[in-house]
């Protein structure tokens, strides 16, 4: 139902095919593609701004989930169905779950809402405004980007199989008109990313392994007090400090 027809602006008084004066309805014609785009875009932008403005880190994570979910909706509307589903599964359902776990593990009372200084905020605001101005004027620069040639897109071409085959090195999609030369597949980046993910898996699991933290009980505290005097001193004569954490 997202793949909708071309809208026309119905003038009042238009009589439809069945002879009923549907044209008198107030919403003359709703381009559902544009309506859903507005919905998803507003949600994504509003939640992105909310991530910046929120103080509570758990709420920031929640707004980020909403923003990325709305972005997935935007991907579906642009015809990139595979990328939209992938965004939902990997980004929202994987990366953000990981992030929320991290937030939960470190959401102790003092760190849940750390406020930056106001000087930082003003400077960041100015930088952000300048960057936004530059990007917005670049967005409306090219004439061909402002208005599509079709009023509303027709059903999206199937995107999973050509993408899958491109990842195996075989390009089956039609080349855009005016393109010259042969187009390569993505086999090498695909293999590199696979190995990269494996390396990251091993590395992250090693980095975040649970280390035994020694909390001194009363007996151990006495024992360690005795042993501090016998411990070899560092270069400046100060006893080595970091032994207690490991």
């Amino acid at each position, binding site marked *: 139902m997202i793949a909708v027809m071309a809208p026309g602006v119905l003038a009042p008084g238009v009589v439809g095919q069945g002879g009923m004066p549907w044209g008198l309805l107030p919403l003359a014609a709703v381009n559902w593609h544009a309506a859903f785009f*507005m919905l998803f875009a507003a949600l994504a932008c509003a939640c992105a701004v909310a991530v910046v403005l929120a103080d509570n880190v758990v709420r920031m994570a929640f707004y980020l989930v909403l923003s990325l979910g709305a972005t997935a909706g935007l991907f579906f509307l642009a015809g990139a169905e595979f990328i939209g589903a992938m965004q939902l599964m990997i980004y929202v359902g994987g990366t953000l779950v990981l*992030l929320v776990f991290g937030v939960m593990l470190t959401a102790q009372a003092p760190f849940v809402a750390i406020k930056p200084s106001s000087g930082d905020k003003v400077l960041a605001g100015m930088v952000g405004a300048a960057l936004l101005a530059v990007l917005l004027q670049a967005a409306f620069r090219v004439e061909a980007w402002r208005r599509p040639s079709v009023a509303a897109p027709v059903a999206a071409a199937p995107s999973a199989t050509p993408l899958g085959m491109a990842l195996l090195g075989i390009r089956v999609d039609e080349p855009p008109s005016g393109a010259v030369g042969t187009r390569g597949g993505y086999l090498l980046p695909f293999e590199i990313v696979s190995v990269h993910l494996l390396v990251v898996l091993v590395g992250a699991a090693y*980095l975040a392994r649970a280390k035994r933290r020694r909390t001194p009980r009363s007996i151990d505290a006495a024992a360690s007090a005795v042993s501090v005097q016998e411990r070899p001193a560092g270069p400046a004569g100060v006893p080595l400090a970091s032994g207690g954490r490991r």
Partner: protein
Amino acid sequence: MNQAIFAGFVTAGWGPTFAAGFLSAPVGVAHYLVVGAVLFTAGVVCMVVKRNALGVLMGIELVLNGANVNFVAFASPDLRGGGTPALGLDGQAIALFVILLAAAEAAVALAITLNFYNNHATVDVDRADELKG
């Protein structure tokens, strides 16, 4: 009777102006680029302003998503006017790799943050200054 009601709606005037102006204008690449710009800027400001390490990480995710929105917008042939051809499958493939690499980078960043938290009992990035000269 129904006709009178419909005529009343029309003369109220809110319908046609609302629909014709806002909802029936077709969506082009520029609209997607605006969304991408807002996401990117929000991400950059988030990275700059937040003192919580996880807040900085969220800023990074927003930046990458802004870039992804741009790529997907350029990849779609239905969104652009006559003239330049769309990126097509290449744009979608780039977005795919960006998502994968963002997931990997988020995992490593979180591992580092957790390690930092385990050692220093804080996630405040302003406290990570032991190497300061």
